[in-house]
């Protein structure tokens, strides 16, 4: 049995970051994710949507939840039309930040996700992550 659910949120204000976190939690419940995966997903979504606001001003956060047999797949894609990341390799390094923060955001997200992909240029930035569970989420 397989099923699929998709949703999308506009990220324009700080309140949208909070909404995105809540929505991520809803997706986690709907998908039957374990407690730990739920926290991983909400943390990732919080980091990525916060980055949208901070570096691009606005963007979107899309969710896709799929059940394929016993497998649960959650995909989250954050897009913006901001100026892009000048040095992606540096941005993926712990401790690097252009924004006076800790600089663990993107590398941290990569560690939390099962799949991580980033594309960036002067047209904007797309970050896609996946959590891939095989129907037996460890709590």
């Amino acid at each position: 049995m397989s099923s699929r659910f998709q949703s999308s949120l506009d990220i324009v204000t700080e309140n949208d970051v909070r909404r995105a976190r809540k929505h991520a939690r809803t997706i986690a419940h709907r998908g039957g994710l374990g407690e730990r995966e739920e926290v991983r997903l909400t943390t990732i979504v919080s980091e990525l949507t916060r980055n949208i606001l901070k570096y691009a001003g606005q963007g979107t956060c899309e969710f896709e939840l799929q059940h394929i047999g016993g497998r649960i797949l959650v995909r989250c894609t954050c897009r913006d039309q901001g100026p892009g990341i000048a040095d992606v390799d540096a941005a993926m390094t712990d401790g690097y930040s252009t924004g006076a923060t800790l600089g663990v955001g993107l590398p941290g997200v990569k560690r939390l996700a099962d799949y991580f992909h980033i594309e960036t240029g002067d047209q904007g930035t797309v970050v896609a992550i996946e959590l891939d569970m095989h129907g037996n989420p460890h709590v």
Partner: protein
Amino acid sequence: MKVPILRHGGILLTSFQDDMTDRDALNLQADLLEMIKQTGDTAVLMDVTSLQMIDSYQANMISETGAMARLLGCEVVLSGVQPKVALTLVELGDVISGIRTVLNIGEGLTLLQDSISRPSEDETAEEDSVNENSEGKERASSDELILETSANEEVSNGP
């Protein structure tokens, strides 16, 4: 959303809420510093029991708030980090640093009450606290160990 700061026996107690925005957190930071100034209280307990996740920005905010309160002369303790949050925080990166943490509010209050009452007590009281049972010792912080060592109690032998 206005987050309240409670006073309990010389301890300022505040609780970070799960649905706080960043602005709420910044306001809480400012309110707490103002409250320290107004009351002259020297102990702060920041509770995060209700936080279902902590991202790097919030972690930084918590660490910063703690550092600021310490600069104003406060002993600061963080309580209530949920196990699932701790797991994720460590994966995210070592983002809450330089802050004393305990399991729950109760332990935090006990610890801070001890730290408030200690300076006014005499040496006998200090020795009493050293002779507490093992549970009490487990809770002792490195700060306390230094204080207790100065009360002629060898805690450990250096190399």
